[in-house]
């Protein structure tokens, strides 16, 4: 029987880490992820895990320590937010380039400057091309579940890539929700032992990690890394399937909500999907054919699948909680529209809304406004503006 609990997103992630019982956790405090290493260090002090916990002096050191630990054959984890993630930047590429399956909890917060501690997705979106797998979570339940699946995906021999599990700072990380937890033994069995094929200090097979890699081989290694990201697509679904059998909770690349007969659709990540579901329910009662697609997997990007899913709508709005400052559209919008184009879906008209930067509240009214805009476009009307902002004073 699953354990019914009430946990915040940070508690849920820390609890998952306790059940995973990694060899090393190295972390540095930064709002709103600070609680994760704090809860975890209490587990260490109580003897509930056998982890070596390293309270480092910077996030750069945190990621570096995880890289060292993982290179030496251990299982390493960390947690961070915003500029903590930004400070890890160059090490993120070392982790993925050296194919070290580290798992990180990223509690999304706006990047400086100016300084802001609230939620948006500028941090993880900025790291989207660092070679990390990225899983997004709407609730503390999803954050917990994604954490449990993360190692299985990361450590799969066809993948060997680090994984970042994202959740919305404060909104998810600090709000207490009902949650179903797995028993420790079940987690242990599901996550399994980490048995790396190659690691440092192996007497039988001494290796070097990260030596100079010129134009004679670098490209091949990057090609392999790209292939690993493609392989991750298959592994993510296999692991989700196994997880479903264990828990009854279904995960894929994205979740569709009331899309069956929908004419228009919003695509949005993380907690805002919860607000959008509320709006969908309300508008459905009014007879409006609206639906929602919530991506869970952003890296690898499920391009043909998402293009296929969106092809049947008349109009789609992609909501981005990060701007690309490219004068063209937010990161999720650009990915989705290019996927749609590349995979030949010509049906829907696409618009983009940048919302909620720096934690600006996104209200049900805002989402309803976007749905109404989409219904106008589908009427059929025309798209008068592709790249838009909502909830900002202009």
């Amino acid at each position: 029987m699953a354990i019914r609990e009430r946990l915040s997103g940070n508690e849920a992630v820390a609890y998952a880490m306790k059940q995973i019982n990694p060899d090393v956790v190295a972390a540095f405090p930064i709002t709103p992820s600070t609680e994760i290493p704090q809860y975890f260090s209490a587990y260490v002090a109580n003897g509930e895990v056998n982890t070596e916990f390293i309270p480092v002096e910077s996030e750069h050191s945190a990621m570096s320590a995880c890289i060292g630990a993982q290179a030496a054959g251990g299982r390493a984890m960390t947690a961070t937010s915003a500029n903590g993630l930004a400070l890890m930047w160059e090490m993120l590429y070392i982790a993925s380039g050296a194919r070290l399956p580290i798992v990180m909890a990223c509690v999304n917060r706006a990047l400086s400057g100016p300084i802001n501690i609230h939620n948006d997705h500028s941090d993880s979106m900025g790291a989207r091309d660092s070679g990390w797998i990225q899983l997004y979570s709407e609730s503390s339940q999803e954050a917990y579940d994604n954490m449990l699946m993360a190692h299985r995906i990361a450590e799969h021999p066809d993948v060997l890539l680090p994984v970042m599990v994202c959740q919305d700072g404060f909104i998810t990380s600090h709000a207490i929700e009902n949650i179903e937890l797995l028993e420790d033994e079940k987690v242990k069995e599901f996550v399994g032992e980490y048995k790396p094929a190659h690691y440092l200090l192996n007497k039988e097979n001494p290796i070097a990690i990260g030596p100079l890699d010129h134009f004679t081989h670098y490209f091949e290694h990057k090609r392999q890394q790209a292939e690993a990201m493609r392989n991750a697509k298959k592994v993510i679904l296999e692991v989700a399937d196994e997880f479903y059998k264990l828990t009854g909770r279904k995960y894929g690349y994205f979740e569709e909500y009331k899309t069956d007969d929908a004419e228009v659709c919003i695509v949005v990540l993380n907690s805002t999907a919860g607000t959008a579901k509320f709006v969908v329910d309300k508008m459905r009662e009014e007879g409006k054919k609206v639906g929602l697609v919530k991506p869970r997997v952003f890296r690898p990007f499920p391009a043909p699948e998402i293009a296929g899913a969106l092809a049947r709508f008349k109009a789609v709005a992609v909501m981005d909680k990060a701007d690309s400052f490219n004068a063209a559209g937010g990161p999720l919008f650009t990915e989705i529209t290019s996927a749609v184009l590349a995979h030949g879906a010509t049906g829907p008209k696409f618009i983009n809304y940048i919302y909620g930067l720096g934690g600006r509240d996104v209200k049900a009214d805002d989402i309803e406004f976007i749905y109404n805009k989409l219904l106008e476009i589908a009427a059929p009307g025309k798209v008068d503006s592709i790249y838009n902002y909502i909830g900002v004073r202009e």
Partner: protein
Amino acid sequence: MNYEYKLYEPTWCPGCGNYMIRTALKMALEGLGIEPHEAVIVSGIGQAAKMPHYIKINGFNGLHGRAIPPAIGIKLSNKNLKVIVESGDGDSYGEGGNHFIHGIRRNIDIAHFVHNNQIYGLTKGQASPTTAMGHKTTLQYDGVKIEPIQPLALALTMGAGFVARGFSGDIQRLVSLMKEAINYKGYALVDILQPCVVWNKVNTFSWYRDRVYYLPDDYDYTNKKEAMEKALEFGDRIPIGILYKVEKETYGDKFDFIKKGLPLVDRELNPLDAEKLMNEFI
């Protein structure tokens, strides 16, 4: 009558040592007759680093640990500005430790006021680089296992020309230390003992008050060996005052193009002047 600095309502906890440090800063600036447009406060992130929000003056609030590099940039581009860095022990010695070390080597004319509460205040009570061994915190449940930094000794070994320690509980002396540091030509460090009433229950106001003592009048602050001894004295007794002060050539003084003439921001750069020289090569 000198300029009177305007203050804003802070979000610091009642009883926090930062209030006293801000009062001292205001008094030092007013006492030196420095007006807000003549000075800039550069800070990182933290409780201490909120200072530019709470006093009406030029302020630059950047990233945690990164106050020193922009302060260097500001001073080099406008040598007429008094540049003051306000930041915490974590900001200055932890995340920003590398800048602290290399900033000293560069010896730019800035005053660095470190609000040393021996804890990460803003992020709620984890150990900072100055937290004592064994001190139990919200992250280090079994106590800190690594040696604390000795900031004054480190500054001395790096070659700092002005090294001082203050206490937020004694405003008058803190004001005079701040004035001396601001007037000093070169990098001046004042490590200010500051109780954090919420997250540091070990190094409290009375803990500091019972330990601090003032360096005697006949103390020779040009004697580096003695300064080093005083810098390492941090236990039952903690010396307060200027531990070390000597004249040193500043970075700006090493370059005629900075030293002589107007501040760089006020110089007219005329690219056409270069054209004549370039023409010689064509």
